[in-house]
């Protein structure tokens, strides 16, 4: 098979990021350290991102079977079970051994992703049972209007990026056929769809009310809808409404050679000059998911440019070891999103996007030969 030089480059970057993720698990032991700061060093383990890191670790294991990714995933999963609250939720924020923490809607949703990946990989019922308890807790908190009743994180209203909580709930429903979970997640998704503006943006997509959305949370919002479309098989209802936002982001990114501005207002004006690298990778993933429907290499082109930009900004030097393979929150590093830090979720989405891109390009290369 023909191997394209850029695909080999993507493979190299993937290997580096994967190794950095293993470092983050070793340092955050037993979870994955939230971020590395050149000033403060490694942070404590972060349940939310440790949860959604697990599917990535299994996907990396499929490509690099001897690197210990699957062990890291199981280890992280066991820790998440240990710290699950009795009501099924997980706490918000970075984990502290002497503090239980408040239950968090968003974090619980992300941990479910990890448990479902463990369920797929091990076929052990314990993971699904824990995920079901968590999803039941989430479903019980959703009101008739689709809002979570308890105040969560920085907003009194349920932010639009909580579509990324609704989609793992749908995944639990698909496995357990629990109608209550399905209906609750549908109410959340419908609430966000009602917030869709005529220009394709979604109101309340920022971390706090009235704030512009970093591409990181815009990526969550759109990805949640695309996942819901896949899980329900209803592209028209959930997937199609997200495409206008994606088309706008594609155009903006293409015109800047993959340097997508870090945050956008509802009128799509750029509010942050720095690139949010996590957002770049998330939008690339969304474009590739859309491309499965649209069959249009122009979407792959935009995704490749977004990822080229992230790869260009990745720390690839062998010293210091803690930075090798790390992906910054922002580019430049002093940008507003995760200032001067290298979050584990930037690395997670970098890996996910590179794997999707390599797989998609491999199909094209195969058809060429």
């Amino acid at each position, binding site marked *: 098979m*023909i191997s*394209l*030089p*850029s*695909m080999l480059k*993507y493979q190299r970057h993937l290997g580096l990021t994967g190794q950095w993720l293993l470092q983050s698990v070793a340092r955050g032991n037993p979870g994955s350290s939230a971020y590395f700061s050149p000033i403060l060093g490694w942070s404590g383990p972060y349940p939310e991102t440790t949860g959604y890191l697990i599917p990535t670790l299994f996907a990396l294991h499929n490509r690099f079977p001897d690197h210990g990714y699957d062990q890291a995933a199981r280890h992280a999963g066991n820790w998440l079970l240990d710290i699950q609250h009795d009501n099924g939720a997980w706490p918000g924020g970075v984990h502290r051994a002497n503090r239980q923490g408040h239950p968090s809607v968003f974090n619980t949703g992300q941990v479910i992703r990890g448990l479902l990946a463990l369920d797929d990989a091990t076929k052990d019922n314990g993971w699904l049972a824990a995920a079901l308890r968590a999803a039941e807790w989430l479903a019980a908190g959703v009101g008739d209007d689709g809002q979570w009743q308890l105040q969560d994180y920085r907003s009194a209203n349920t932010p639009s990026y909580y579509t990324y909580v609704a989609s793992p709930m749908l995944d639990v429903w698909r496995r357990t056929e629990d109608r209550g979970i399905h209906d609750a997640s549908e109410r959340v998704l419908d609430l966000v769809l009602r917030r869709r503006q005529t220009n394709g943006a979604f109101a309340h997509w920022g971390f706090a009310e009235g704030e512009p959305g970093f591409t990181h949370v815009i990526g969550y919002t759109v990805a949640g809808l695309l996942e819901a479309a896949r899980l329900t098989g209803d592209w028209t209802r959930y997937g199609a409404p997200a495409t206008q936002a994606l*088309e706008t982001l594609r*155009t903006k990114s*293409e*015109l*800047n*050679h*993959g*340097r997508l501005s870090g945050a956008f207002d509802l009128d799509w004006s750029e509010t942050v000059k720095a690139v949010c690298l996590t957002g770049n990778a998330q939008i690339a993933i969304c474009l590739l998911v859309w491309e499965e429907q*649209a069959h*249009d*290499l*122009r979407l*792959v*082109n*935009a995704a*490749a*440019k977004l990822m*080229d930009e992230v790869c*260009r900004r990745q720390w690839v030097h062998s010293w210091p070891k803690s930075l090798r393979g790390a992906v910054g929150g922002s580019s430049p590093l002093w940008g507003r999103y995760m200032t001067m830090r290298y979050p584990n979720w930037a690395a997670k989405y970098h890996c996910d996007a590179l794997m999707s891109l390599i797989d998609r*390009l491999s199909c*094209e*290369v195969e*058809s*060429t*030969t």
Partner: protein
Amino acid sequence: MKLALTAGYDRALHAIALAELLRRQGHHLDPVLVVNQITFTRVRQTLRQQGLTGLRHQALRLLTNASRHNKNQGPSCLERFLDNHCISERSLKQWCRKHHSTYDVVTTLNRPSAIRLVAATAPDGLIYAGGGILLQPIIDTVRGRILNAHSGPLPEIRGMNACEWSVLLGLKPTVTIHFIDRGIDTGPPIATFPVRVERGDTIERLREKCTLRGVEGIVQCLDAINRPIPSAAKVPAADLYRQCHVLAPVLRELLEARLRSGSSLDFQGRELS
């Protein structure tokens, strides 16, 4: 006819070919506007978007003449075309001096000074052979009578790298002669000219073939400048088709691999969005 001509740079061989062929048909070209590629804004924009590597690449391209082929491959299609037609000039400035046409270098074609220069000669139409996006004032100055050769089928393949995208998206490479309007390649098409792709073609060669076909196409379609421009209702809905942008390096490599192997070159009609 009295015609104005634009070009993206002074040594644009296709623009020289166009100018000379049109002159030989009895048309008068005045003014010839060439866009200056080395401006502070342009350098800053390139640096910001493509970094130092991009800037170096652009500078090399300008210095070595964009349409010149690799020396190992011999003269390019365009150079051969010029030689075959006994066109000795290799610079628009040189051509203008020889044929007493006004030659001006502008930072953008949309500057009032450029528009004034066009308006002063009151041309029957403008031949666009590069120089960036045209805004409404200059379009209005020539009453919309601007001919462009677009290296892809319209309305399906709008935007940049059109001949490359045609091959990648499985459409037969075609040059479309069309009027320019406010949108990106959304103006009414006049005629199409197929371009033959052969196994072993490179991207550069493919682009040159399209450029050459465009030169021939504009010369053939010049009379359209005097005909009424089709109304908007008659133009296929360009907005239905996604705009194309510059190829990412990996897709460029993929296209090169396809051209080398000759696979995916059996173009089928397919629907795009």
